[in-house]
């Protein structure tokens, strides 16, 4: 047994050599921070160092955050916002994939598709800058339109009633086109003879979509929804951080933005890490479950 391993080691020395530099980098920048979560159980003082002689406080930091009203708000907002994003992010791309597939001229189809993907490639910093302008209550193009219809302007980014929906809608706007890629691929893999048979039987477009296209996409829809389960505590930091302001913390503050403010702005490292660990712990459980389910039911494997 041991001999086997030594033999394997000798034979594969070049392979191990290839892995080494990356393994060192990954160890430093991913595994050490993983061990660094111990500061969630300490009263961390930076000058003493990351693994220095810090004072241990047990679960005090966790007790404290669980009583923090901001934490409860952020947790609830995160779940609420990301669930809406997940559902919208499934339904909208499926809808558009079906419609795109029905465009008879392939040249036109390609152009529209290409335009659909564009927002995906732009940073949220740039898009947030644009949306702040477009949604502004005084000069924003959306409110100018609302005013010409005779309504009061709406402060989309400053009103707790509207803010979460702005997050959801702009997120769907940015990502739906990219989401259609996977579903379009699923549609093209449906056997065309099914459609021919349906047409011979006199099925119209709607019946074909309902009875052939949708069932054909079903496995991939299930797979994507299972995989998205793991991201329920990720409400998209980049987007929220660049669009929110203190007025809408109540409805728009999410776990990641709270971690940033408590941990990095107020330099309350231990509390920030405790919230982070809470988040990573639950996410780990969800991602592991979703990968397991995806493997079990769809035979999906990442590696």
């Amino acid at each position, binding site marked *: 047994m041991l001999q086997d391993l030594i033999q394997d080691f000798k034979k594969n020395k070049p*392979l191990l050599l290839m892995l080494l*530099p990356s*393994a060192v*980098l990954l160890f430093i920048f991913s595994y050490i921070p993983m061990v660094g979560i111990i500061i969630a159980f300490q009263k961390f003082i930076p000058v003493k160092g*990351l693994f220095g002689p810090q004072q241990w406080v047990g679960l005090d930091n966790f007790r404290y955050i669980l009583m923090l009203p901001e934490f409860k708000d952020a947790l609830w907002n995160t779940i609420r916002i990301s669930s809406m994003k997940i559902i919208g992010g499934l339904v909208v791309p499926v809808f558009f994939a079906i419609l795109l597939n029905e465009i008879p001229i392939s040249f036109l189809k390609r152009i529209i598709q290409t335009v659909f993907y564009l927002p995906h490639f732009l*940073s949220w910093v740039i898009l947030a800058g*644009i949306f702040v302008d477009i949604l502004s209550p005084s000069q924003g193009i959306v409110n100018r339109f609302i005013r010409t219809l005779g309504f009061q302007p709406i402060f989309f980014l400053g009103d707790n009633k509207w803010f979460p929906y702005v997050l959801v809608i702009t997120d769907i706007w940015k990502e739906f086109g990219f989401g259609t890629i996977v579903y379009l691929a699923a549609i093209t893999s449906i056997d065309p003879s099914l459609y021919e048979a349906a047409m011979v039987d006199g099925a119209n477009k709607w019946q074909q979509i309902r009875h052939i296209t949708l069932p054909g996409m079903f496995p991939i829809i299930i797979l994507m929804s299972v995989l998205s389960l793991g991201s329920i505590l990720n409400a998209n930091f*980049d987007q929220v951080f660049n669009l929110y302001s203190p007025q809408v913390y109540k409805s728009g503050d999410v776990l990641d933005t709270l971690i940033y403010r408590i941990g990095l702005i107020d330099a309350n490292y231990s509390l920030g890490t405790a919230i*982070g660990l809470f988040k990573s712990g639950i996410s780990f459980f969800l991602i592991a479950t979703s990968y397991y389910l995806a493997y079990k039911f769809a035979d999906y494997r990442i590696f």
Partner: protein
Amino acid sequence: MRDTKSERIFHFINTIFLTIVAFICLAPMLYILAVSFSANEAVTSGQVTFWPKEFTTIAYTYLMANKLFWYALLNSIKRIVLGVGLNILCTILVAYPLSKDSRKFKMRNLWAWFFFIPMIFSGGIIPWFILIKELKLINSIWALVLPGAVSPFYIVVLLNFFRGIPAELEEAAIIDGCGYWRILFQIYLPLSLPAIATIAVFAILAHWNSWFDGLILMSEPKNYPLITYLQTAVININYERLTEEEIRRLALLGGSSYKAAQLFAGSLPVILSYPFLQRYFIKGLTLGSIKG
């Protein structure tokens, strides 16, 4: 195939509808472009929609004179050159050993887990930040390059591609006396150039668009990459960090069109390379990770 009248109507309405949606996807970019070329008064009085009013290039003239913008662009370019190079090197060197069968390379599965665990669990942002601070990498370009050098996601894409290369090629090379290094660089690499190009595109875009690490790891504004600079100049304007010249410029232009010009300039590289970009991206998606 026969085309009934109702079907023709459906096709027509569908195409019109999708064209409108496509326009909605472009509209924010068109708006910002129009604003950036408009006089500020026209913007604040709400006259600009998708076409510039009182056409002027003054916002861009000011932008060209802004030193911080050029520093930031240079930092981004530096970051992309170093970062993407490192990304590709690490990806190749990890994907090849991990593409081996665990019967030939017994520790393969152990190593695979080592490389993929960071995909599902992380220590969070704060220990990561403290570590980089203790490594004295604050304000160094390496802080933006080294932590993300090994990306499990890229490894998965290339690994799956390597697996598609017929094993006979390698076996033949081994019989001819080739070592693993030569097999990798003389057989696998030339065959997987399209996959590597795809990963390069992913990596370039990721480095160009990331901004948060720049914000927390760079304390000097002149070390910011471009998108980080935009974040501080357009979104969270921190007046303490602006130079006097910057404040004067902001006051002079009153914001809107100058901001718009910065935003548009920041997205221009992506838009210009877009036709090329998206082809590789879609290839990447169907190539590696999501195959169902």
